[in-house]
């Protein structure tokens, strides 16, 4: 069930809101209802996904309790290892086994080894990367004694399964929700309703009226990757970067809005990333819940930036390599992660040496261009396609012929991109918009949401749903 589908907006969401707020006197019943609704939401894709989610939730709930109850350090470590191994094992089996065997097979055939390995067709449970990361942060934080484990199974199942973040984040940590789950909002106030409606409509507009409108133009550029010239190559890079931003930040806005309508507050996931003045700043603004997860649970434990320049670069490359792999089981994601690791490492070295440009405008432009170029690898179905697009961006395929510009870069697409480039560089993001709760603003948000909903005829899955 997609957020941008009629069944979600006109059946599931009203039913859940009605049930949730009408049960406000009975906390356990409320949480059981929300867990059930979230599991139903999840099983709507494929009921076979559900046992994996329930299994991972159960293991981490028990591991959390046992870790907290134990005073023995080796036992705590063993329990944490078991919990992490379960989550990483689930990810490794469902997400990466096919990729691993496929790559092994490729190497085998390249060096002339005999019969190919049997190909694996494993069903990939949707949202698996997000909820395993949610769960892992819970047990790690308990191990580090930063959070008390919950005694309530229902609080924990609600935390992991809460449908607004279940499929594509934001990656919410237990510390973000623990207090909110303990003291559930008793009734829907006009403040939270207004905030929820505002975020939801912003998300719908970003996804349906911007990202989905860019999609056919961008898809065509990547389909015709062998015919791209300098202009169309850059259009492919910038167009996709904008599409991805509006798609994913639109999803995040919807998640925040939906959580708000249920009385929960989610953390911010995007903070005008294209206004970043360096690559490190970009990662503090882009998919913030994921980058902070990798920072806190991987980069800092590896030593962070405290052990000299070489070690910092290595830590950044390792972290971004795994962040790339987290996005998908394909070499394009691995390379994309490594490229960002190198960007971050280079920036760390240059900053220490005092060689970074002083002009904010130059820094911002340079960061934007590097990010867009890297997204080409992220978007491309293969490294060959990425190579074609990147080489066209370097001018190796020449300028575009007039006829090709006309075919690949229609005026509507160019105008839309130009307007969006101005927007992302100048306009405030959803979290910064000053919203006076006036009736005309409510009407404007309602009309915008209605127009967005009218484009749902054929729902396009969110780009991040595939991960």
């Amino acid at each position, binding site marked *: 069930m997609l957020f941008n589908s009629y069944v979600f907006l006109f059946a599931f969401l009203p039913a859940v809101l009605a049930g949730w707020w009408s049960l406000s006197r009975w906390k356990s019943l409320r949480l059981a209802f929300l867990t059930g609704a979230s599991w139903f939401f999840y099983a709507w894709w494929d009921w076979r996904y559900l046992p994996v989610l329930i299994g991972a939730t159960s293991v981490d709930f028990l591991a959390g309790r046992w870790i907290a109850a134990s005073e023995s350090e080796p036992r705590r470590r063993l329990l944490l290892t078991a919990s992490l191994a379960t989550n990483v094992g689930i990810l490794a089996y469902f997400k990466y086994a096919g990729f691993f065997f496929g790559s092994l097979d490729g190497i085998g055939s390249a060096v002339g080894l005999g019969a190919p390995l049997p190909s694996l067709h494993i069903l990939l449970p949707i949202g698996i990367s997000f909820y395993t990361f949610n769960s892992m942060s819970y047990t790690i934080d308990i191990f580090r004694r930063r959070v008390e484990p919950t005694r309530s199974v229902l609080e924990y199942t609600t935390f992991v399964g809460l449908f607004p973040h279940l499929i594509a984040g934001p990656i919410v940590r237990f510390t973000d929700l623990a207090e909110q789950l303990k003291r559930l909002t008793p009734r829907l106030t006009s403040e939270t309703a207004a905030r929820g409606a505002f975020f939801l409509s912003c998300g719908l507009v970003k996804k349906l009226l911007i990202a989905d409108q860019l999609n056919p133009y961008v898809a065509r550029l990547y389909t015709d990757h062998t015919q791209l010239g300098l202009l169309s190559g850059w259009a492919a890079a910038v167009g996709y970067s904008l599409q991805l931003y509006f798609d994913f930040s639109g999803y995040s806005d919807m998640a925040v809005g939906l959580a708000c309508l249920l009385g929960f507050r989610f953390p911010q996931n995007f903070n005008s990333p294209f206004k970043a003045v360096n690559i490190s700043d970009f990662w503090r603004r882009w998919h913030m819940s994921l980058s902070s997860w990798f920072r806190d649970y991987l980069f800092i434990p590896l030593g962070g930036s405290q052990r000299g320049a070489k070690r910092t670069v290595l830590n950044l490359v390792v972290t971004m390599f795994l962040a790339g792999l987290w996005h998908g089981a394909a070499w394009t994601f691995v390379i994309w992660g490594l490229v960002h690791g190198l960007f971050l490492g280079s920036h760390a070295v240059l900053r220490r040496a005092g060689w970074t440009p002083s002009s904010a405008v130059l820094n911002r432009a340079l960061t934007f261009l590097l990010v867009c170029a890297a997204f080409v690898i992220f978007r491309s179905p293969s490294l060959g396609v990425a190579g074609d697009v990147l080489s066209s961006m370097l001018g190796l395929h020449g300028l575009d012929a007039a006829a090709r510009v006309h075919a690949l870069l229609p005026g509507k697409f160019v105008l839309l991109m130009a307007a969006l480039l101005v927007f992302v560089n100048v306009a405030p993001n959803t979290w*910064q918009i000053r*919203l006076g709760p006036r009736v005309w603003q409510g009407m404007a948000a309602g009309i915008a949401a209605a127009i967005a909903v009218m484009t749902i005829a054929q729902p396009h899955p969110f780009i991040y749903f595939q991960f």
Partner: protein
Amino acid sequence: MSSSQAIAKGGGAVGSSASATEVTAAASQRRFVGGFLGSFLAVLAAVLAFNVVVDPYALAGTKLVPTAVEPDRSIKLDLLQKLEHGPQILILGDSRGRQAEPSVVQRLTGHTAFNAAVTGGSAPEAYVFVRYTAHRFPRQKRRYIWFVSTGLTSSAVVPQLAQDSRARRYLSSVPRFGLADVKTYLSTDATKASWRVFEKCVLGPCRSHIHYHADGSLTNQSLHYLPEHAQSLHRAVAAAIAGVRRHPETLAEARRQLAEPGRFRYFDRILTFMNRRGEVPVIVINPVYPSVLAAEEQNGFPARRATLATLAQLKTRFRFVLVDCENSRTWGGNPRDWSNASHVNRANMRLELKYIVAHSHGALR
């Protein structure tokens, strides 16, 4: 200050001692929510009402203005109704079969023909045309060329067909305007179609661009207004190949699709009806553009395997001749004479018809 802070500043103190400012702010937040919900629902209701009244896809059956979709089912029933002599060969199928010229069929077989293939036509349409022609011209045995694609059939009845009283009596279940149609009529596509109809048929003289000969064939070769029209064959083929690669089907999925309950309801009825009258139809599997076919074959083309297996099963119960035209090389098709990745143009259709007649094992003689 963030939006939430601003809203909170506007009136987050619900439940506290109600100062005048807080009460005003809470009221304005309620107005925000009211304005949001009111305008959201009002816009959608207005759009739905407009689209139901104009009814561009003939889903609601209001019939106040002509539909945006071509009413070819009714047009062909009209043409059949006007015929003085019953056609000896009836051409059935979907838009792929629309390019078949009855005059060419007559030249190849010596028998008169009528093209009853319609856009998106499936077994219910074929059944209606077969029964209606039999009713209109009784005591006349007929030959059939029936164009089908992999997947063979669907039993879904298009509302446009059900709304024609001549067709309705042959249909066991008539679709009603339901939730799925509400969804369709809330879309921008439907609204654009409604506006086009409104502009052309309410504000303008309402002229159709698609015309037919008395034998059911299209009057001109231009595909501009037809669904099979593609601005560039190259791009249409590239998109089709990308689609095949993006969503490779498995044999189990293809089999499951063909085993859907009720899928063959009309297909079985047609064959039963024809065989009972001593008629043996020629079922033609539609061609697929060579490079798209190659992409499908790389994946083992499960849909084709499942379709052929189903046809083999049907062969044990019914009499029909199968002519497989899927690979255009078998009938000498020219890769340039295609309208898009699944529709041949007239030049290729003439070659295909020649092959069909030659391989019909006498069923068209």
